[in-house]
């Protein structure tokens, strides 16, 4: 075996040009797979970071019907779930891992209920309390925030984020203008933006969609007027700001337990409040971005197939060229399986070598991509090992036919050929 590997390496070295060309298909295939995988890994890391790291340590706790988040947009108020009051909010904020709590209602996708003149608004609308903006790091960049008087007097005022402002009022000053929400006129009083607006700020899967689909933004009204435009006593979501990143999960869990206890919900109930499992969400988001890239891997796989056929072709030529050598080896006592083994090893060594070169080339490509186009990349060691092993398998598979041809050569014919 070791002899065979040594001989194969000698063979590859003595036919540098040919070996290189033979390996080219494998190299390109493996390199593109490695580059794609690196991009996927990098993307996943980025999503995870933006989901957990940069997001002001906020966890949302919301009502679930079994496994699924209860969607107020398409379902009626669940029976037996009482609204939460502001005294309860103080109780929640007393939990030591919890910094601040905000209650809010939302429609992540406003379904033809909001218009500015004839233009329908497709972003999200939020009925918020007075803590919401602070909790999510929104800052007023124009006009004003929501005032206590707005809550007390059920004023029909609305705050836009800058995306909503530019999508509904392109080139205009939105302040003082009117949008129609469920048939009610609301006056725009302020524009807000998130302080970390340069970074992706993803709180949930729906947020991801909003960003991914070039969001048309968010608008905010007081929680007080929410019943006017949607429903009375709609179950609210709870945004929990933890004291630090490490206690996010703990804080979410604590709030979840407190709310369930307060409302008398247990694990057996149909409905239950649950906090987002951030890691699980990160995985979901990663899976979404991965699925597109996985199609690319299939395409790269085809180039590997073509590479494999190239290897088979060259191996067949090699067998023909080395007919005499094979004949001699048989004459001096090499058994069939030894000849088979020799050529299989040669093919496998050739493609493994191609695989290694491909990995190196792929890493370089990934690095270049991230430099030039700013795509995040991450290197995954297991995928490199798999790539090399896989290219070895290609050698074994596509080398089999030529190797069998060599093993079956008749030694007389083989020795006779000049």
């Amino acid at each position, binding site marked *: 075996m070791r002899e065979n590997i040594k001989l194969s390496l000698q063979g590859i070295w*003595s036919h540098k040009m040919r070996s290189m060309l033979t390996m080219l298909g494998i190299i390109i295939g493996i390199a593109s797979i490695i580059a794609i995988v690196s991009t996927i890994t990098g993307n996943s890391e980025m999503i995870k970071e933006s989901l957990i790291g940069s997001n002001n340590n906020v966890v949302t706790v919301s009502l679930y019907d079994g496994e699924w988040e209860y969607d107020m947009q398409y379902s009626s108020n669940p029976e037996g779930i009482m609204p939460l009051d502001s005294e309860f909010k103080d109780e929640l904020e007393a939990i030591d891992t919890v910094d601040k709590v905000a209650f809010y209602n939302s429609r992540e996708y406003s379904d033809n209920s909001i218009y500015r003149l004839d233009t329908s608004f497709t972003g999200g609308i939020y009925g918020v309390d007075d803590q919401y903006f602070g909790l999510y790091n929104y800052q007023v960049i124009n006009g004003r925030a929501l005032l206590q008087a707005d809550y007390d007097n059920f004023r029909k005022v609305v705050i836009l984020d800058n995306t909503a402002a530019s999508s509904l009022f392109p080139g205009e000053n939105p302040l003082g203008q009117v949008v129609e929400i469920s048939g009610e006129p609301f006056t725009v009083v302020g524009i807000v933006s998130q302080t970390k607006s340069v970074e992706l700020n993803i709180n949930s899967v729906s947020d991801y969609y909003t960003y991914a689909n070039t969001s048309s933004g968010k608008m905010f009204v007081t929680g007080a007027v929410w019943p006017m435009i949607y429903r009375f006593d709609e179950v609210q979501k709870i945004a929990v700001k933890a004291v630090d990143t490490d206690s996010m999960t703990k804080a979410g869990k604590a709030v979840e337990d407190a709310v369930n206890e307060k409302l008398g919900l247990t694990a057996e109930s149909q409905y239950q409040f649950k906090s987002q499992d951030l890691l699980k969400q990160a995985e979901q988001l990663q899976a979404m971005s991965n699925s597109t890239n996985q199609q690319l891997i299939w395409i790269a796989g085809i180039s590997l197939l073509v590479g494999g056929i190239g290897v088979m072709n060259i191996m067949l030529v090699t067998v023909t060229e080395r007919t*005499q*050598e094979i004949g001699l080896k*048989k004459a001096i*006592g*090499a058994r*069939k399986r*030894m000849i088979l083994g020799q050529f299989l090893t040669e093919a496998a060594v050739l493609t493994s070598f191609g695989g290694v070169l491909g990995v190196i080339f792929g890493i370089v490509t990934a690095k270049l991509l991230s430099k030039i186009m700013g795509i995040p990349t991450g290197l995954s060691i297991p995928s490199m090992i798999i790539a090399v092993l896989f290219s070895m398998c290609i050698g074994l598979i596509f080398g089999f036919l030529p190797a069998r041809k060599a093993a079956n050569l008749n030694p007389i014919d083989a020795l006779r050929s000049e």
Partner: protein
Amino acid sequence: MILEMTDVCKDYFRGKIPVPVLKEINLKVEEGEYIAIMGPSGSGKTTLMNLVGCLDVPTSGTLKLNDVDVSTQTEDQLAKLRNSFIGFVFQQFHLLPEMDARDNVALPLLYAGVGLKERREKAEEALKMVGLEERIHFKPNQLSGGQCQRVAIARAVVGKPKLLLADEPTGALDTASGEQVMEIFSELNRQGITIVMITHEPSIAACANKIYHIRDGVLTADR
């Protein structure tokens, strides 16, 4: 009996028509004999050699090597026979160009499953026997024709075979190199190796103890 051929025939097929190449060959070779088979080209002598070397099988008749009927042997058993019982020397040497002399000589031992160190020792020994101990790291293209043939002889005998088959061993060599090769053959025969040699040169055949002639597939002993 090292080699015993009884009524061995060999036909080749040209299309569907059988062309007899060897006709009822009867040949007995005792251990320690040194025989030469002479014949013009096309007389079937190489075919005879291939049969004796287990590279080909007879159409009819029996061929026994060391009292074993080769037709009863499996392919792997034949490979083993070629590896340990028979040594081949060809007209064109058939050395592997990318290996040095020592590795070429050691090749049969590799197939016999001998370890690396022992292989090298034995190969060096065999090269010394043919007078090439200075050339063990030379590759075939750095050696003269005569030297190549001596490497090939070393390879043939490195596994201590009982029977050495030589097909025109001097056919590609000049007279001086040919004589050297013949001396080595005589020495090997003195050591007890049975030799069957094919040649068309009477002067070479004269080195053997016994000469046969083959013509149109019929083998006759020399008178």
